[in-house]
């Protein structure tokens, strides 16, 4: 009897214990702590929280540690954990106009009420490796205060006042929750935005870039990009009012895009919208561009056949957990399918040989 096809169980156990060993690495080097990850690899933690759809820094840090820094694997761990959490309530919509901003910029107006605030950004740094970081225990101190307490109304609201900006109307429907209802196409903007907010940063980046290079070009300006803390409020029926249950960091991006006007509407600016957990501005920016590209139908624009305009294409491929699972499943055994292909190709070849002889 041929033995190689047996013994899967032991092989799996062995593989996993070896992986745990490798994850720990050289034991003469101190174990990395979750605090270190959540304090020093914050942007990685933020990405895992946003695409994992679960705002919990400690769990995200644990996932990053467990996944050996493979962020998609970490996102996967967080998502699987999320499945087991009971949904007991929905919060009130967050009010990003009341955000306590650590960063807030506009590319459309130089001077804005509340002022521009650069905040902690890689922008304008020279991308030179900083060998000073090789030395440990450095503790740089920023001379500026961290948060801006000024009132910072949304920049696009000023365009709204003149009616130059398309006003987003509340359709009074509850937003769709794609983690509780399956997506059906054509879908609503709320479902699209949720899917994009959970979507893979790399995929969104590439698609957004494609719109800038002419595949559904929509001339986006960054009307406003803001990062900061918002309150999460929960309505408690027993109390009869809302209470503050958490503070989270969000990145919000609103783009200003051209719009030609239609039979019933004069030309106006329109907006693309991005809102993502954590400090994740590349993702929020990309999300806003894609959101705007996907709105072609509602705005009566032409479908140019660009990938970023194709709702089914974008939404059904932006989830990296679905994508990586299906891609990697081809590593699983396919003996049976392959066997039937073998039979068939032999049969066809045999028939072809007979025919050729004739």
């Amino acid at each position: 009897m041929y033995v190689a096809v047996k013994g899967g169980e032991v092989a799996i156990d062995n593989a996993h214990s070896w992986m745990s060993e490798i994850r720990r690495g050289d034991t003469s080097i101190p174990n990395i702590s979750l605090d270190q990850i959540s304090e020093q690899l914050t942007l990685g933690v933020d990405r895992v929280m946003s695409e994992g759809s679960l705002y919990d820094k400690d769990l995200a840090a644990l996932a990053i540690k467990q996944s050996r820094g493979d962020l998609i694997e970490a996102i996967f761990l967080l998502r699987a954990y999320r499945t087991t959490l009971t949904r007991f309530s929905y919060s009130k919509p967050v009010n990003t106009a009341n955000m306590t901003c650590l960063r807030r910029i506009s590319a459309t107006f130089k001077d804005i009420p509340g002022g521009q605030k650069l905040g902690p950004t890689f922008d304008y740094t020279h991308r030179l490796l900083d060998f000073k970081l090789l030395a440990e225990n450095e503790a740089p101190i920023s001379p500026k205060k961290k948060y801006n307490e000024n009132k910072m109304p949304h920049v696009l609201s000023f365009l709204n006042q003149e009616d130059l900006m398309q006003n987003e109307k509340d359709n009074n429907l509850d937003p769709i929750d794609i983690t509780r209802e399956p997506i059906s196409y054509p879908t609503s903007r709320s479902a699209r935005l949720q899917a994009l907010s959970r979507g893979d940063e790399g995929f969104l980046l590439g698609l957004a870039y494609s719109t800038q290079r002419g595949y559904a070009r929509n001339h986006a300006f960054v009307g406003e990009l803001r990062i900061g803390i918002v309150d999460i409020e929960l309505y408690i029926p027993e109390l009869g009012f809302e209470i503050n249950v958490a503070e989270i960091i969000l990145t919000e991006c609103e783009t200003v895009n051209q719009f030609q006007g239609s039979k019933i509407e004069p030309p106006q600016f329109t907006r693309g919208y991005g809102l993502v957990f954590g400090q994740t501005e590349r993702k929020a920016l990309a999300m806003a561009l894609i959101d705007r590209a996907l709105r072609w139908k509602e705005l009566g624009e032409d479908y140019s056949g660009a990938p970023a305009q194709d709702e089914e294409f974008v939404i059904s491929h932006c989830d990296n957990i679905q994508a990586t699972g299906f891609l990697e499943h081809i590593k699983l055994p396919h003996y049976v399918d392959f066997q039937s292909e073998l039979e068939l190709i032999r049969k066809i070849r045999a028939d072809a040989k007979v025919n050729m002889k004739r």
Partner: protein
Amino acid sequence: MNEMSKNENLDIQIYNFAYLDENTKRMIRRALLKALCIPGYQVPFSSREMPMPYGWGTGGIQVTSACLIPKDILKVIDQGADDTTNAVSIRKFFQKTANVAVTEKTSDASLIQTRHRIPETKLKEKQILVYQVPIPEPLRFLEPRETETRKMHALSEYGLMYVKLYEDIAKHGHIETAYAYPVKTNGNYVTDPSPIPKFDNPKMNNSPAIQLFGAGREQRIYAIPPYTNVKSLDFEDYPFEAMKANFKCSICGSSDSYLDEIIVSDDGKRSYICSDTDYCKEQTKLNSKKED
């Protein structure tokens, strides 16, 4: 060993029976009931992220999780075998989270989760067969758009499906699909049987067991109730043909079961063994009894 299983028991208590919470199970059961009422129709359901990757049987696992009861006897196979990696991983998962009895014996199992095969042993009433489905849409590779394929099903617009079969015959003289060979369920919906070899297709027809299909990533559930007509698509003059390697199993000697080809020596010598490991075992036992 004892200590280890104690630890694992601690682990279990964090999660609900069979992992999913009861609300989620209820949602899946509703989809299953709907699916059984409309045989072959793909019911959308809000698939959850499972602790296994999409594409590794998350649909089947969710269906199993929603169906399992404590007195169930579970069998999990992948490629017909009980001890391939994926089958082992899924069986362990349910042992851990549901603490149900497991078996390798097809006739003993009350619920069988499978990837890519239907067991050779004839299934019975009250058995449930849960298929793991990667792409539930049989029209997907002819028409990539979901909005379009749903309309095609709604209107029985299956012309395109037959064009594919027509082209195969025109080109090769055969229908070229060897696995995931499309079927028509209850004379109505064209259905994907999951990537089982077409050798298994006839077993779906008029089966006494309940057949449930779960596609996690694609968020679809569909079903074939017991004793339902399942017909493999074909032409009147090119009828469907189940196909297998024309050899005997080199272990049990069976010639009527589906065979896997294995390469046994460096010079490429081939041998054939049953893909269904339980069936092979049973046949071997029967043979030795006869010899006695």
